[in-house]
């Protein structure tokens, strides 16, 4: 029963979605201020979701199941990540060995779900979006995993989030070392791509593909995709905080760190144009991958 509560309400689906939607408002408001606009009121994202719930759901006749199932697949796995991260933050003993690996896998599923849904929709624009998303995954997963490998080496081979947190609580945050700082920068780029924010919003590309992967979605499934994005906006920064800035995990510091990270995400988002998919691929395989490799080497020599 507590497990179900943890998954559905706190710190799982509901809690992370609410925080994510609030973070989405922060993003919209800050973007608006950067662009000399006023920006929406704080409840705008909630209103949007509620509005979507009341809309008709339209789906392709040939692929109803895949099309309608994939949003939930992404949302539920993102919620699971939120639960694991939240439980680890509450007490570092509540995790299990290898939860870091599970989290890395689960964080990939929303993107896979997006590809699944887009392919099921049979729209040419969505299929272009899906192929871009797939290429983007190929681009960012390699440096992302490599930089986490560097971190695992740094933490003495521990693949348990709780252990990593404990180590940081006793010593210094991982980001304070050379390998940790490099790995953090790599993870930051990958996070931007995982969130689908500029300069890596290639799969959605409003102006080219009209929201690409999401083009055929409406009503509830669209709302679920939006919620998944909101949850991702919550779990990815928190994941990075746990891995790299886990020194002090009291509520106040967590909130400050989270807002600080969010601030940088939004700044990068608003000061970069969208790159082409081949440029994104080239960028991730050249710059962050080598940074991640350097970080692994540094971690091996104990820096």
């Amino acid at each position, binding site marked *: 029963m507590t497990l179900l509560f943890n998954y559905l309400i706190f710190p799982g689906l509901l809690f992370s979605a609410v925080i994510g939607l609030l973070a989405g408002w922060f993003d919209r408001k800050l973007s608006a201020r950067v662009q*000399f*606009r006023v920006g929406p009121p704080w409840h705008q994202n909630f209103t949007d979701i509620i509005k979507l719930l009341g809309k008709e759901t339209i789906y392709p006749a040939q692929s109803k199941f895949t099309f309608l199932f994939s949003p939930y697949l992404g949302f539920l796995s993102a919620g699971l990540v939120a639960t694991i991260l939240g439980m680890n933050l509450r007490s570092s003993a509540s995790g299990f060995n290898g939860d870091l690996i599970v989290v890395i896998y689960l964080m990939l599923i929303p993107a896979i779900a997006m590809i699944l849904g887009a392919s099921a929709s049979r729209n040419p624009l969505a299929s272009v979006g899906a192929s871009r998303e797939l290429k983007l995954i190929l681009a960012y997963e390699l440096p992302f995993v490599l930089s986490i490998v560097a971190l695992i080496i740094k933490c003495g081979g521990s693949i348990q989030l709780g252990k990593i947190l404990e180590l940081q609580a006793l010593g210094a945050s991982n980001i304070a070392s050379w390998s940790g700082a490099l790995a953090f920068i790599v993870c930051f780029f990958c996070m931007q791509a995982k969130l689908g924010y500029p300069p890596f919003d290639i799969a959605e590309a409003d102006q080219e593909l009209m929201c690409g992967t999401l083009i055929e979605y409406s009503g509830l499934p669209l709302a679920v995709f939006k919620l998944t994005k909101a949850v991702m906006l919550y779990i990815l920064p928190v994941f990075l905080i746990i891995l790299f800035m886990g020194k002090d995990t009291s509520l106040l510091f967590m909130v400050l760190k989270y807002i600080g990270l969010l601030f940088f995400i939004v700044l990068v988002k608003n000061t970069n*144009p969208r790159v082409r998919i081949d440029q994104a691929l080239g960028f991730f395989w050249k710059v962050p991958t080598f940074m991640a490799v350097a970080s692994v080497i540094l971690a091996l020599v104990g820096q």
Partner: protein
Amino acid sequence: MSHKVIVPIGPYHPMQEEPEFFQLYVEGEKVVDIDIIIGYNHRGIEKLAESKHYDQIAFLVERICGICSSSHPYAYVLAVEDLFGGEANIVPERALYIRTIIDELQRIHSHLLWLGLAGHFIGYNTVWMWAWKYREPVLDMFEMVTGNRNNYAMFKIGGVRRDIKDEDIPELKKMLDNLAPSIKMFYGAINDDPVIKARLKIAGTLTKEQAIDWCVVGPTARASGVNIDIRRDEPYGAFLMNTIDWNVVLEKDGDIFAKTMVRILEMEDSINIINQALNKMPKGEIDANVKDVPPGEGIGRVEAPRGECIHYIKSDGTNRPVRHKIRAPSFMNVASDKVAAVGGTISDATLTLAAVDPCYCCTERVAVINKADNKKIMNGWDLVRLSQEKTNKIKEGWPNGRPE
């Protein structure tokens, strides 16, 4: 060989603010062919112009396009004044300067608008909002001079409708001085940003030969190194007097980056031209009060923000033209997408389509109706009647005459 997929851009698409239809034939991300289909928004303005008298047409053609709303009336009055022996022959000197000031202000506002949209199209919404913010003072200047922010209603045959007040001139100059640094800022920001460069360089290249072959005009041609500018080649307005010191902006790469640079540099030039015109404007009349339009044929050419805009007028000596023909610059430029966009990726293609600063409402032409299969050609009233009949048919199906 993989099969071709059609990616539709249009008839309604968030990238284009007007209805038009581009069919991109793609293999993966690569665009292998493109179909350009226009004609969704034809308004029959040329025909309409033939039923209005000369003074009314200036207002009508102003509404061809909301962005070039001084180029079209200017080209039109030039065409009519051609019947009197040319603009220089009848229009007072002060009016010539005022015409140029309006025309150049319009160039600044149009290029800033394009710059914002270009930022939006590459997913850089900050540029979009900033460019449009700096466009506001330009519209304020318009309001000060003409009383309107758009559709200025300044042009009439033989002069202009409103004078620029002497007490407004210092204020106008101050606003121009404030605008100049922000345009410099855009120049610096776009030149220094490696991501923007990576995105815009090489993309959508139109070589000089292609530019000449496809007869492109305006900034699109100048970005490819084709040295044409009506302001220099066939001077009008304040350029007639040869008192204004300016240069034609030329780039040679022909890619989207070059097109952006041409437009930004032209804005700087325009500020320069307006400042000089404000200084050198003589006192005197602003209107020649012409009465009867003589019979004959006249042509007016104006360098609109998008390129050469041509109006042709044929008069039989009455107060209405017998024929009014308009060729807007986008009509030439849009076709060049056929070579510029093919071969690139979808991302580049969408940008290339926007890089010529297309204006479809200027460009619209009548769609051809296939006479072979005996289809009826309908006029406007037929269409209205058809739509009313259809509405009535739908209403019959409703209980109590209302939708369920």
